[in-house]
């Protein structure tokens, strides 16, 4: 059998081009080249498959120019006509995960070419695309590369060869909502009793019918009287007082900060900066109003468009931060703002 042909997609970081300062590079095609994690994949494939080309794209570029980047990349993939397309793995890098999911889904849907990707379960790309392409579950950082490559390699070969793909829990991909009929060894009543006994003994068990997770919050009523409303600013873009006094981490933040805006009419490079490690900080460090629009809100306050800008703002770094942490920060900030009589919130994200 001929070798399975594979095209690999990675971001600027894993291509060794650079970090956030290079996140805006357009898509590049490297025909016949194996780059970054591609080497580990190639080693895993042995004689069975080969990477015939690597596509590299900056994460910000992809997310800010989705249609253009997608069209260009699809054109290249179509020309190379691989048997399988692999994107990532993206671990918990949000924009990279979204890029991997978007392009893998497009390759599969538009070109009819099998595609897979890999990422951490909390990556926003996972929820967006797990029902469209096979997403292998990985750890949350590149420290899990070995494990991720091993899982993705095994799955890629099986999938490309047209072998039968089992249930998500057996194959290690994220549940895509597709049900597969099969005969269980034990009958239903016995399985239910086993599960109940495990539950009573505080032992782990896996439900066969997970309830769907619809965590939606109904929108609150609109602000009726903006001219008398107090508006608060909150950001996940990491804007902090210069020097980052609370030492908010540049990724996987373990806290949020509360900072005073009393007497502040404009954020500048001497007073505020960003602690965020997940985007190029140059622009925000020069003028943090680009992330937290204090200058404009002060003007609007003076003009009477809004009643008041709340005297405190809240910030954390939304880079690889666990959903559970973000939830906790949001709830705490929400109750503080409510207690302070704030009417509405502008939340900015980078």
């Amino acid at each position: 059998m001929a070798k399975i042909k594979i095209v690999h997609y990675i971001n600027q970081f894993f291509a060794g081009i650079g970090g956030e300062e290079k996140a805006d590079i357009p898509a590049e095609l490297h025909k016949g080249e194996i780059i970054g994690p591609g080497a580990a994949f190639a080693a895993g494939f042995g004689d069975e498959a080969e990477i015939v080309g690597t596509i590299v794209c900056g994460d910000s570029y992809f997310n800010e120019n989705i249609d253009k980047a997608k069209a260009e990349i699809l054109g290249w993939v179509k020309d190379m006509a691989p048997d399988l397309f692999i994107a990532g793995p993206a671990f918990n890098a949000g924009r990279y995960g979204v890029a991997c999911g978007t392009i893998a889904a497009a390759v599969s849907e538009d070109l009819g070419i099998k595609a897979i990707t890999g990422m951490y379960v909390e990556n926003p790309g996972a929820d967006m695309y797990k029902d469209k392409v096979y997403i292998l579950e990985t750890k949350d950082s590149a420290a899990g590369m070995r494990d991720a490559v091993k899982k993705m390699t095994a799955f890629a070969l099986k999938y490309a060869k047209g072998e039968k793909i089992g249930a998500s829990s057996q194959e290690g991909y994220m549940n895509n909502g597709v049900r597969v009929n099969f005969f269980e060894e034990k009958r239903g009543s016995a399985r239910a009793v086993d599960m109940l006994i495990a539950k009573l003994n505080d032992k782990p068990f896996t439900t066969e019918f997970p309830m769907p997770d619809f965590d939606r919050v109904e929108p609150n009523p609109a602000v009726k009287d903006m001219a008398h409303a107090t508006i608060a600013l909150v950001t996940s873009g990491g804007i902090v007082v210069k020097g980052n006094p609370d030492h908010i981490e540049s990724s996987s933040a373990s806290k949020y900060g509360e900072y005073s805006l009393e007497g502040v009419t404009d954020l500048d490079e001497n007073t505020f900066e960003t602690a965020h490690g997940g985007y190029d900080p140059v622009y925000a460090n020069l003028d943090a109003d680009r992330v937290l629009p204090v200058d404009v809100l002060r003007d609007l306050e003076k003009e009477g468009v809004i009643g008041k800008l709340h005297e405190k703002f809240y910030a954390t770094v939304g880079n690889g931060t666990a959903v559970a942490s973000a939830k906790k920060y949001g709830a705490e900030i929400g109750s503080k703002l409510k207690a302070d009589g704030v009417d509405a919130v502008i939340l900015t994200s980078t």
Partner: protein
Amino acid sequence: MVKELERAGLPVVHVCTVTPISLTVGANRIVPAIAIPHPLGNPALDKEEEKALRRRLVLKALKALETEVDGQKVFED
């Protein structure tokens, strides 16, 4: 965070560049921003033009807060 603020009883507008993420996360009022590293700015413009751009975005965000919504809504131009 956006959902928890809403749950606390505060109307929230999420100003962000990658709106599909915002939709997945569950924001209700969404205003698309300029770019990931400078959502409310554009360093290519001169200072005054940039502030005018930011003012337009903030006014749009305020408009979103003044608009009743039934579920999720992205406030395009």
